[in-house]
């Protein structure tokens, strides 16, 4: 090993780094191209606007599935975002460093690593059975909140902690209370990071399948309330692929999923950049 010259070792290192980047990009492209090329032919407005017919044929579209997904994500975020931001503010700004808060932090770390199906079983036991919410969008959303809360809290806490200390000192020295300092200076400065974490959670919620299978059921009917059962896009892909012969419809649904995720990500980047531009004087 000693005999390798610095120049050669640099070339080897660069080769590895380049290969890593290339492989990542290639995998992403491959998946997107594959799903879109298989899915787009079956994808048209009609597909988006008709109900799935159910049964083995997998005929029909995905209108009810889209509605269920929108309800589910909407309800999940409505609960997740305020609770998550509240907990993150507490941990980042108020929590003293003692055994209790260390335990909370440890708990959050562990929860973030628990497989989603475990949350699904928990959601089934608590929301579906014990609380009698049945297989419903509400049960699914509450389960997703439990699943995503650790991620939401951790990423938001990081965003809050990344706000320079000098902003806090500046506000406090002007005679602001602690809460004014947080609400008027710290949180606005942390907004880009918080948006990122919300979108990250949205992405995971859209992609989640297993834990929703056991909490939402999988009804393909149009949901009439939050207590209706439902089927998300990911679940629908799963059903179509596993229980019907309609692989083309599964691919079309997958294409919709991918497009939504790409749109969500683009929107995030755009929003975060806009915010930091407004805050940072256009640099």
């Amino acid at each position, binding site marked *: 090993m000693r005999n390798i010259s610095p120049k050669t070792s640099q070339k080897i290192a660069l080769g590895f780094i380049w290969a890593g980047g290339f492989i990542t990009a290639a995998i992403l492209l491959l998946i997107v191209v594959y799903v879109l090329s298989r899915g787009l032919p079956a994808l048209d407005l009609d597909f988006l606007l008709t109900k799935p017919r159910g049964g083995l044929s997998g005929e029909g579209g995905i209108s009810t599935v889209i509605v269920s997904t929108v309800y589910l994500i909407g309800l999940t975020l409505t609960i997740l975002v305020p609770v998550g931001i509240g907990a993150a503010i507490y941990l980042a700004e108020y929590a003293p460093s003692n055994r209790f808060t260390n335990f909370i932090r440890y708990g959050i770390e562990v929860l973030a690593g628990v497989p989603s199906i475990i949350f699904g079983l928990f959601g089934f036991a608590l929301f579906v059975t014990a609380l009698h919410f049945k297989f419903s969008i509400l049960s699914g959303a509450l389960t997703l909140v439990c699943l995503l809360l650790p991620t939401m809290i951790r990423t938001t806490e990081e965003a809050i902690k990344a706000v*320079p200390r*000098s*902003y806090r*000192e*500046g*506000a*406090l*020295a*002007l*005679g*602001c*209370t602690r809460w*004014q300092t947080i609400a*008027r*200076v710290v949180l*606005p*400065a942390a907004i880009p990071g918080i948006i990122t974490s919300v979108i990250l959670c949205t992405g995971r919620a859209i992609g989640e399948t297993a834990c929703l299978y056991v909490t939402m059921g999988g009804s393909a009917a149009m949901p009439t309330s939050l207590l209706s059962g439902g089927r998300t896009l990911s679940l629908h892909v799963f059903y179509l692929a596993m229980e019907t012969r309609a692989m083309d419809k599964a691919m079309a649904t997958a294409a919709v999923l991918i497009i939504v995720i790409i749109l969500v990500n683009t929107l995030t980047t755009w929003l975060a950049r806009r915010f930091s531009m*407004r*805050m*940072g*004087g*256009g*640099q």
Partner: protein
Amino acid sequence: MKMNVTLERAAETNLCVTKLRTDMVSLFYGKFQALRNVSLDITPCSITSIIGPSGCGKSSLLRLFNRMNDLIPNAVVKGKVELDGTDIYDRAVDVVDLRKKVGMVFQKPNPFPMSIYDNIAFGPRQHGKTNRAELDKIVENVLHRAALWEEVKDKLGQSALALSGGQQQRLCIARVLAVEPEVILMDEPCSALDPVATLKIEDLMRSLAQNYTIIIVTHNMQQAARVSDMAAFMMMTEDRAGELVEYGTTSQIFTNPKDKRTEDYITGRFG
């Protein structure tokens, strides 16, 4: 509120020729003693500089006056710190009211990530002023007093972070003025600035000293000699606690120091 009443009464009866006073003050961070028995009387409407080698507790002393040390867990203050005769570490004192009276400018300019206007209006808004016309007046007024108006009057809506370092620091001073303090603490306000910007800040300090009591911590001897009326020289003892070595008029400290250590430091033989 209790403090306000006492302060006003004290001011009315002109009992205090001293604006701020520390009486045998010691400061501890846990077991570590940062300051020992500092006694200092600060005259109103003047500039007092605190000088001394790094780590001698200058900033710690400065931060006693607006209780910024409160932010550090396990910081303990012994002795008395008085503003217009009232002990500011008394339980009845509201630290938020205190900090409105005793403003602070930091070492590194720290404008908030918002527009120039919003930076200045920040303090008044948090303290309940929402009338746009009134805020406009405050913003223009304090920017004039901070000698920044001409440079920024056409871009009040732009981000404060786009200003130069010197402009940012003057903005921070203007932001403090908008809260109508009586005392302004400055913690090495020019250490991040170039000489031209430094001179502008010093001019500004001189003009502000007519109405405000200013205390400045500085590493720059010439700066202390140029701007301050009174100078306090601090040093740390062997156990690293900061002590006040000598306190007097700036000209006395710089031309005729009584203490050998002051003389050594001033003449550059040590430090």
